[in-house]
């Protein structure tokens, strides 16, 4: 019980600090943090599948993009308002992850990675193919008038930050809840030993499919939020780069930890931001740091904290 209080305290504490920062941070970092929180939500979604279920996908950009375009296209072409548009985005991610999961989960290991990569590539090409609607690489802007949610103007930095925090809090607490309950404990068991888990009487396929859908839907929520808050949807977000990012963030922050995705996203964002101030070879600095971290903190930052300091961290 005291472990629950500690962990709950820690996570709610983080959310309160992030809330306070809304009024404390200078404009530049305020804007960064809003962006980081939305991207961290994406990483949280990725972590459900990679960190907790042990399935490495190389195609999560398709879910992020499904959310972004599900939202963006309904606003742009059907004139939907933000709330139903975001729901459309999440719905698109949910359906896509159900279909992709159903097919891709027939494979395991490297084959699963390749299959998810191929599906994501197909989604990316689809975005380009329907350039008439999506404006392909160039993308399209979501106008200020379309970004007013229940009378709240999301282009205002303050509102944008709070909206990002709200989405982040939902994702964080949802996964916190998930891993403490039956379904979450079962996917962790599948990660640890799939065969053993099956032999205890669990339908492994159904649980994995559930994990893909939860992971894909959270990623889609992040994608829809990103498009809405920052007013743009473009094909870059469906590219392979955006499939690799969440993997890096989660690896860095600690796969299979609740706070890892946020820590990893924050760390990498500022690593690139700071090193690009110093040198144009900033990707080199970022790369070397990543290599050092994987050598000396192979479980990621929060993973190491858990292994060395706080074993009660979820």
């Amino acid at each position: 019980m005291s472990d629950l209080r500690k962990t709950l305290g820690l996570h709610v504490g983080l959310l309160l600090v992030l809330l306070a920062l809304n009024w404390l941070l200078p404009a530049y970092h305020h804007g960064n943090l809003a962006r980081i929180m939305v991207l961290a939500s994406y990483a949280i979604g990725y972590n459900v599948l990679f960190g907790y279920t042990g399935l490495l996908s190389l195609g999560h950009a398709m879910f992020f993009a499904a959310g972004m375009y599900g939202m963006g296209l309904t606003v742009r072409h059907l004139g939907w308002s933000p709330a139903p548009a975001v729901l459309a985005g999440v719905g698109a991610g949910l359906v896509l992850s159900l279909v992709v999961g159903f097919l891709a989960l027939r494979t395991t290991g490297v084959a699963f990675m390749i299959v998810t990569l191929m599906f994501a590539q197909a989604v990316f090409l689809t975005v380009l193919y329907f350039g008439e609607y999506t404006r392909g690489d160039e993308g399209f802007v979501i106008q200020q008038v379309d970004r007013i949610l229940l009378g709240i103007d999301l282009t205002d930095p303050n509102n944008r930050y709070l909206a990002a925090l709200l989405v982040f809090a939902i994702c964080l607490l949802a996964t916190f809840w998930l891993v403490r309950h039956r379904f979450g404990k079962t996917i962790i068991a599948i990660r640890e030993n799939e065969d053993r888990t099956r032999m205890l009487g669990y339908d492994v396929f159904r649980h994995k499919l559930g994990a893909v859908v939860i992971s894909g839907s959270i990623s889609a929520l992040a994608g829809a939020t990103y498009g809405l808050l920052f007013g743009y949807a473009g094909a870059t977000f469906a590219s392979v780069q955006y499939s690799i990012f969440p993997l890096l963030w989660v690896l860095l922050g600690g796969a299979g930890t609740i706070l890892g995705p946020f820590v990893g996203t924050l760390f990498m964002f500022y690593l690139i931001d700071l090193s690009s101030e110093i040198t144009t070879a900033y990707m080199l600095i970022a790369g070397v740091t990543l290599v050092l971290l994987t050598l000396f903190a192979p479980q990621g930052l929060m993973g190491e904290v858990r292994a060395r300091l706080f074993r009660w961290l979820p």
Partner: protein
Amino acid sequence: MTVLRTQGLSKSFGGLEAVRDVDLSVPQGQVRALIGPNGAGKTTLVGLICGRIEPSRGTVSFLDQDVTRLPVHQRIRRGMGYTFQITSVLSNLSLRENVALAVRPREKSEDVVEGEVVSALTQVGLVHRIDQHAGDLSYGHQRLLEIAMGLGQRPKLLILDEPTQGLSEGEVAAFNSLIRRLAGETTVLLIEHNMDVVMAVADEITVLDFGAVLAEGTPDEIRKNAGVQAAYLGTG
């Protein structure tokens, strides 16, 4: 009542017939030992029974229902429990969580689960280590944890694949009395190399050789059987 019945159960791996036309019938509450030299097909046979391996021919019925086409997890939910020959506990999880995972499929309330976890771990003498990671246990203790997971499933048929391998003498004695306590209620199918254990706990013995049933009978009958002596006991 017959808990388990196989008919003509066979499995070939390429050219090798690892299990050949096995007709097995185990009545309710019996402790049935399955013995035979290494490579006789014992692990393959129980794999066919619980659905880990698909048979080339033959049928499996469990509690008078044909389960040959059922996937593993559904057979387990109907009351089969299986412990692995090669220990495969979930090493990064606590003993508590290992056993809880075994209990949950048949129990909704987490409080009841916790109670049963403690009870199963007490029965194998590991309850004082409930919060440790399973991977930190010695090999023998991991075997005991496997058995506790089997108990946590409260199976109608408990299949144990060489459970005493790597246990100390004291632990083997404790294992014997545990099995005797289960007998009568739980049907046990026990693959075992240690003949002292077999003679101590088995009601009946099935001897497997080159994938086929060589002999079947009470421990006394098996001890006297010349064919078994030649194939197995004499050399063991």
